[in-house]
Structures are given as C-alpha cells and as structure tokens.
C-alpha cells in the first residue's frame, strides 16, 4: 500500500504539477524568493519583508484589512449582480427579494456591512500612515496614490448608496449631487458660471453642467440609476484595482514597509 507521502511524491513528479508550479516547494531563502518572483499574484509583494514591517502594532494591518474587505466586496457584489436589475421598475423590489427570498439573504448584508467597514479601515490605514510618518520620502507618491484610493472608496460608497432605490437613496443622492451645482465654472450655480455667457444666453445651465453629466438628467431618475450602477459595478472598481496594484508595487519599490524612526 502506498502511503500519503508516496502519493504526494508521485503528484509532484507528474507533468501536470510541474507545468503549473515552476519551482520545487521552497525550502531555503533562495527558493522562497523564487516562489514569490515567479508568481503573478505574489510578485507585487516584496520578496522579503523587514521584521519591523510586519509588527501588528506598527501597521495595524489596516491596509491589508482594507484590501481584504475590498475582495469581500468584489465577490459579494458579483453575486448580488445575479439578482439586481438597475431599473426604476425592479431595483427596489430586487433588493427586497435579495433580502427576503434569495438563498443566503445574508449576501446583501455582507456587502453593505463590508462597504461601511472598508470606509472605516481605509481612514484608519491613512491615519496609521500619517502617525508613523510613513508618507515621507521616498513614499510621497504612494501617499498620493493612497489619497486617490480613498476618494475611490468613498465614491464606491456613494454610488452604491443609490442602488436600493428607496427614499433614503433617492434623497441622499439628490442632496449629495446638488453640491455639484456649486462647482466653479462647470456647475450652473457655481462661482464664475454666470460669466460664461453669449449675449444673454447662459452657456452653463441645468441641462449641460457637471451635475447633468453625473445624473444624465436634470434630477435623479432612471438614467441616473443606470449611470451609478455602471460606475459602482464596473468603472470605479476597475480604476481602483489598477491603482491598488500600483500601490502595492510602490510599497515594494520604495523599500518595503517603512521601518521605525
């Protein structure tokens, strides 16, 4: 009778295994480094991490937790998309259906609580980076990437907030997007907009300013729901994913997680 060890041995000898795993199981510093370098997912991560960098008291692992919650949001979000239709007729009913009828009604709660959690952890991560002075050279650029990631996280929350299409969603987004009316020059009530005139024709008005582009209309309606849905499910996650790759790559290129002062 072949033991477990023999089975494992023959699996590792097989052509299938060898074609997938390019290196033998890491056993020393060199092969461990190779395993990281030769894997598309791991190679964003530094080959070596300084011991100080992985102290929980230093990083709180807040960036890592933010990334983890982001992954949870991606997975639960994709699952929700199997049930949710972004139309005035169905949106609210589909949300209720997701909670009351769909198997694992928990899925929607997971996505919602995850969204709140991500906003909290991303702020805590930023606070940690600030308090430890980890934004200082050579990490200034990664701070800037981080600020954009923070913005994208908040935009994900904002666009997702409209999707349940209940009274809270409608009016929160109405109030939120009305602030865009006051954007200088490109918002029709903003400073400078009144100066952009041809004779007595206003060039910037309620049907061609930034808010109009955001809402696809003069007020929050079905076109807005569709626009926010696409932003929430595709456009913003796409940009955020690319920026996260840059963020992690820069940590590595800036010499790994910063050390104690």
């Amino acid at each position, binding site marked *: 009778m072949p033991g477990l060890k023999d089975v494992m041995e023959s699996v590792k000898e097989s052509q299938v295994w060898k074609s997938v795993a390019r290196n033998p199981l890491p056993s020393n510093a060199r092969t461990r480094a190779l395993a990281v370098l030769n894997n598309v997912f791991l190679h964003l991560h530094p080959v070596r991490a300084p011991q100080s960098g992985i102290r929980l008291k230093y990083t709180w692992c807040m960036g890592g937790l933010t990334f983890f919650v982001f992954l949870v949001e991606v997975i639960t979000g994709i699952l929700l998309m199997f049930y949710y239709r972004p139309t005035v007729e169905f949106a609210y009913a589909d949300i209720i259906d997701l909670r009351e009828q769909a198997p694992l009604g928990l899925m929607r709660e997971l996505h919602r609580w995850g969204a709140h959690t991500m906003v909290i952890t991303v702020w805590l991560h930023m606070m940690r980076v600030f308090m430890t002075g980890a934004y200082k050279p050579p990490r200034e650029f990664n701070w800037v990437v981080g600020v954009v990631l923070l913005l994208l996280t908040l935009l994900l929350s904002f666009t997702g907030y409209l999707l349940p299409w209940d009274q809270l969603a409608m*009016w929160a987004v*109405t*109030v939120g997007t*009305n*602030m865009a009316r006051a954007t200088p020059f490109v918002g029709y009530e903003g400073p400078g907009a009144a100066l952009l005139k041809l004779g007595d024709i206003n060039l910037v008005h309620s*049907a*061609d300013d930034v808010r*109009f*582009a955001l809402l*696809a*209309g*003069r*007020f929050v*309606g*079905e*076109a807005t729901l569709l626009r926010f849905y696409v932003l929430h499910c595709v456009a913003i996650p796409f940009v955020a994913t690319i920026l996260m790759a840059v963020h992690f790559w820069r940590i590595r290129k800036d010499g790994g997680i910063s050390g104690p002062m």
Partner: protein
Amino acid sequence: MADTTKEGVSRRGFLSWLGLAWTAFSAAMAASGIALARFMFPNVLFEPPMSFKVGRPEEFALGVDERFKPQGVWIVKTTKEIFALSTVCTHLGCTPNWLSAEQKFKCPCHGSGYYVSGVNFEGPTPRPLERFAVFVADDGQVVVDKNRIFQYEKGQWTDPQSHILLS
C-alpha cells in the same frame, strides 16, 4: 542644404516631420478626448416636459394646488394672483410637503419651512422657493414654463411673467 544625406532625408527635415506628426497625433488625441467627454451628455431626456398647460385660471380654487407636483410645481392662487412655485427645496433639493393645516411647506430632509408665498421662515435654507414663468395662452389656459426662473432675493417676483394678476 548641405547636410542632406545619401538617402535624401536630412536630420533637420526628419525632426520637423516628427514634430508635425506628434502635433497632429496630440491634436487627434485631444479631439477624441473631448468627443468622449461629450458622450456623457445625453441628447434625449426621458423627463417630463419643461413647459406645459395646467388649466384655466378660474378653474383653480384659492390656495395650493398639488396636482402638478409630479411635474415639479405647485400652482398657488391668492385673491390677487396665480403663480407657480418650484417643488425643489432651496436648501439641498429635496421635495417639501404641503401641510395644509399649518399652511406651510415643510421639507422632510432638514426641516426647512416656507410660507404659501414660498418665502422661507425656518430651517437651514438660505432663500425662498423659486417661481416659474406663467402666462395665459391663446386658448385661455395657464402655461407653466420651467425654463424661466424668478427669484425673490433678486427682486424678480415683480416681473410680469412671474405671476398672473387676477382682476
């Protein structure tokens, strides 16, 4: 030019062609960028029309008529005039409710309150509700035109288009 090479293209000539090519390329990229931005502005809106008829002046009872709230207006009739009040709260854009017992418009979002006239008296809003242009069409019906706005704080409520005087 003396620096023409055997192949017939001078270094200087090549560089100026390169400059021209880059300029053309950048211009094309800029133009397509603008075209892409334009894509986000729809040409057709699935929204109620901005201008519509609401009925003859004598058909309205004194007070606030809520029938046209879905189109974004309250038609208000007093003993002196008829005017069209916007249903958009001037604080941050929610839709206030008409509370007939208290004779006021009250916004559920942050509590702004307005008199029947549209003038604000409580809550965070900085200014009165807006009025839209109204006039009597040839068939005797009142037309509301939401494209033209009259603001109290700009002294525009005396404009003849901002109300229909009843005699």
